């Protein structure tokens, strides 16, 4: 029977898109989402049909907004002849009094945005010649500025408008997922010769804010107060690195949350189409990320006591993340080896508890029975689609930059381990300020320790170590029912009361289970369209040399032996085939211990060699895929880790839905079986286990021990 040889399945894709609280789903032609862990923000491209200029302000709309009555006033554009200027001189046009903005969608949007103004300070404004603004330019200035400029031909959306995108699970149509959130970036409005009008909107995720948050390191003596706005981050430190002496969580929390003291916050008015409200904003922080629901978690076993990378002197208590007494003190959750619990916290399925977890800290306890009544079906079960409508249409209550900061750190590296991050020389005091950005600082630090940072589809900023040494089943192969979830709350998640409170107050629908997450990271052959498996010889390196010395301008010195001892890190198992291939990693900071240098060298070689064996896979839509998760590719019996995931959904009769991944750090099977489970193959990277001394699965004690070959 053909059906047996050629299985046939059905898929029912759907999306919902909200811009500034307005649902534009019915006008969306296609959505393309790209998530990656690189320096640039993830992007989403939304293609809209712009029928009758629904999303573009027209001349008629401007007349209505400006209250220009053509029966009393003629609009004449001087450079158009009367014959060409058909719009404003046409007698029929002139007979009309004040027109309306006919499209109700456009009318609501422009009415809302047109009312939002901001005061600006004019007293210190000068003209180009240095004279006070009260001179020739004053008649052109206004003390009030429209926050949202509206002009003829401009879109009704504006840059930095919040956007949320949700996808339905095409194989399980009752389940919906957050797929993207961020800010409008670019807009392109196109009209063809046949008057077919479309609009393309590009959206960037909240890490965009990191790119624009300036941080001044040792601001110049002469110009600091003039150049630095009082909301920008300012470091005055004797070290060249602004984060000297700080652990990774402290670095991240300082950049994102600033001081977190009450006096360091102000109230900002936040608007959306369907509401407005006050939002507490940190003066020296970034965005409105949520401090109380953010998580610092450790995973894996602790390093041996006395290990050089575990600095007992810096720890205030076992597992402490941020110093006690600090204004940004925070507890650490120890997950043991339970990465399924970590994924549960990150998971992007739309759940009733999102109503509580995703709103602002001030609003978190306010959602009581009134809201629950609005958001349930007739049988009392939570209505996921109504929850999506509520979250999407109220970005004033659910800001897209109010996600959590989720940091996962292997315990063996020590939460307060800062030996890798810092190690610096005393810098001079510059006379003029040099600005960098919070994003640049973070990426520099994270790249040194080979950590990855990305924005999740829910809007959480996730910082993790590389997880490419694990197998997919570490994320759990069984669904989590109520008993399992309760067990987690009593266990590793007991330090995360907000999650338990939200789950208790907003229970799941009866037939809904969470997880399992392991099977999400399996690409079966029957789901694959095509793949490309590449091995790039040039990327293989077998030797890294690191110099743990404190000397300025080390890179410029010809003989490294003059600067003190250097530490080579080898891949002996690769040398017989590849020879000695030197990687000369140049740490932008400086490492001052041998242990730190060795670790840094291992991380460098891991990172470089990971790019040698890559996969590109295009397959059936899998919206549960996740960055930095070991993913099994059945077609080649290999495990690789996605660096970039792209989902594309085009609607209609010529529609399509695909997912594609770019993956690195491929691990393959060389015939070795596990000693403990002889049916389980062991997957290893280039050079096998011998090719990697820093293997996180081994560090966790869960890497399958290989049967030794005779």
């Amino acid at each position, binding site marked *: 029977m053909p059906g047996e040889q050629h*299985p046939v399945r059905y898929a*029912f894709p759907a999306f919902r898109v909200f811009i500034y609280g307005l649902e534009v789903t019915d006008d969306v032609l296609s959505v393309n989402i790209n998530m990656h862990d690189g320096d640039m923000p993830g992007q989403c491209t939304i293609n809209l049909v712009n029928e009758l200029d629904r999303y573009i302000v027209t001349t008629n709309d401007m007349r209505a907004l400006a209250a220009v009555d053509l029966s009393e006033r003629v609009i004449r554009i001087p450079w158009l002849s009367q014959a060409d200027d058909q719009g404003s001189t046409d007698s029929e046009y002139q007979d*009309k009094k004040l027109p*309306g903005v*006919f499209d109700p969608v456009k009318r609501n949007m422009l009415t809302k945005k047109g009312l939002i103004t901001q005061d600006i300070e004019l007293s210190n404004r000068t003209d180009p010649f240095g004279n006070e603004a009260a001179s020739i330019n004053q008649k052109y200035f206004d003390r009030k500025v429209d926050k949202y400029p509206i002009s003829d031909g401009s879109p009704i959306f504006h840059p930095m408008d919040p956007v949320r995108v949700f996808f339905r699970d095409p194989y399980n149509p009752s389940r919906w997922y957050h797929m993207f959130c961020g800010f409008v970036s670019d807009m392109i409005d196109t009209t063809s010769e046949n008057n077919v009008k479309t609009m393309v909107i590009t959206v960037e995720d909240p890490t965009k804010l990191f790119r624009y948050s300036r941080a001044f390191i040792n601001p110049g003596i002469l110009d600091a107060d003039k150049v630095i706005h009082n909301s920008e981050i300012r470091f005055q430190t004797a070290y060249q690195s602004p984060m000297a002496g700080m652990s990774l969580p402290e670095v991240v929390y300082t950049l994102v949350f600033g001081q977190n003291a009450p006096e360091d916050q102000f109230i900002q008015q936040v608007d959306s189409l369907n509401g407005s409200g006050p939002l507490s904003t940190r003066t020296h922080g970034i965005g409105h990320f949520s401090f109380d629901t953010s998580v610092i978690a450790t995973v894996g076993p602790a390093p041996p006591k006395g290990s050089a990378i575990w600095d007992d002197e810096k720890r205030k208590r076992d597992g402490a993340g941020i110093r006690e007494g600090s204004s940004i003190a925070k507890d650490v959750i120890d997950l043991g080896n339970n990465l399924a619990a970590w994924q549960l916290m990150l998971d992007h399925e739309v759940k009733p508890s999102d109503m509580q977890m995703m709103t602002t800290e001030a609003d978190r306890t306010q959602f009581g029975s009134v809201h629950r009544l609005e958001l349930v079906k007739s049988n009392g079960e939570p209505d996921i689609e109504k929850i999506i409508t509520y979250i999407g249409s109220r970005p004033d209550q659910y800001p897209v930059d109010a996600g959590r900061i989720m940091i996962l750190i292997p315990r063996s590296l020590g939460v307060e381990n800062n030996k890798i991050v810092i190690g610096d020389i005393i810098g001079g005091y510059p006379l003029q300020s040099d600005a960098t950005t919070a994003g640049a600082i973070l990426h520099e630090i994270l790249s040194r320790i080979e950590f990855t940072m990305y924005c999740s589809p829910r809007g959480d900023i996730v910082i993790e170590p590389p997880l490419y040494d694990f197998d997919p089943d570490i994320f759990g192969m069984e669904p989590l029912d109520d008993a399992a979830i309760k067990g987690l709350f009593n266990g590793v998640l007991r330090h995360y009361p907000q999650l338990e409170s939200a789950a208790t107050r907003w229970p799941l629908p009866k037939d809904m289970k969470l997880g399992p997450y392991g099977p999400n990271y399996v690409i079966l052959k029957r*789901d*694959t369209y095509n793949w490309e498996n590449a091995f790039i010889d040039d990327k293989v390196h077998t030797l890294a040399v690191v110099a743990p010395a404190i000397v300025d301008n080390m890179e410029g010195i010809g003989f490294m032996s003059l600067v003190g001892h250097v530490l080579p890190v080898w891949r002996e198992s690769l040398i017989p085939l590849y020879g000695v291939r030197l990687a000369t990693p140049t740490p932008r900071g400086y490492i001052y211990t041998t242990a730190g240098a060795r670790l840094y060298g291992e991380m460098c070689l891991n990172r470089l060699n990971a790019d040698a064996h890559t996969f590109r896979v295009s397959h*059936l839509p899998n919206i549960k895929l996740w960055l930095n998760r070991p993913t099994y590719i059945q077609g080649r019996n290999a495990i690789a880790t996605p660096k970039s995931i792209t989902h594309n959904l085009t609607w209609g*009769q010529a*529609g399509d839905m695909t997912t594609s991944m770019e993956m690195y750090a491929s691990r393959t099977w060389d015939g070795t079986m596990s000693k403990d489970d002889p049916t389980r193959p062991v997957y290893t990277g280039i050079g096998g286990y011998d090719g990697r001394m820093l293997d996180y699965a081994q560090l966790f004690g869960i890497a399958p021990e290989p049967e030794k070959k005779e």
Partner: protein
Amino acid sequence: MGLLDAATFFSKTLIPTIGGRATNRRVPFTFSSTKRLLESGSVGTTQSRELAKEDAAIVLAKELRAIEGTDFLGSALGTLGLSSVLSVVPSMPVINMAVNPNTIRWSQPKRYVKRDTMNGSVFFHFTDSKGQNNDILTLTFSGSTGNINTQNGLDNSTNTGADVKLRIWHELYALTREPVLLDGGLKNEIFITYRTVLMPIPITFVGFFNQVLEFTENAAHPFSRDYTFGFTVTNTSPPLDDLTNKLNSALSLVGPISAIKSVI
């Protein structure tokens, strides 16, 4: 339109023919548009801009009431007062077809896409809020003008209705050429009332013409012309999903099968 009771279910198909006394079971198709209804004052107020500001759903409901609420079966065409038909009006608000189209083709594809994987196939169904993957309904009408020979004098044309048929064809042609957008951004929607033996429940289709009326002048038929045009349906009254229920309810009131046979 409400359900018809048993006594009148098929009786409303009986109307007098042009100039004759015999009855004939024919329900004329009617064609109209938002533009014609506005110009005739059947919908809206003199302030058509006020109408334009209303929600589109409210506008459509008003237009449907204007069309469905009128008893076209007792209209000027039924009574055949010639002067009333040829009264001087710029255009007919509602075009009653003197000769109904002889062929109507219904076509409604489904929205799905097949993709092959390495070991199987997947059908992607693009569904609406009701879970249906139906694409847009398109109707293709083909018909003939009937006898449009107006050369034989008024009496003859009165008997054959040639003047009326000629005028109706031109009105239909003009209708297919109307703008889709009126002043103030108001959409000009087209309305077709439809009733046949297969579809005894009257249906009003709302949509637009996907081509101007197409015709060929052929000497082989000197006094009649064939035409065709396509119509894309954006809405119906009642919804097509409700047709079966309504028909079942009406048929259940008619009586035994033998009674139905006599009118088919």
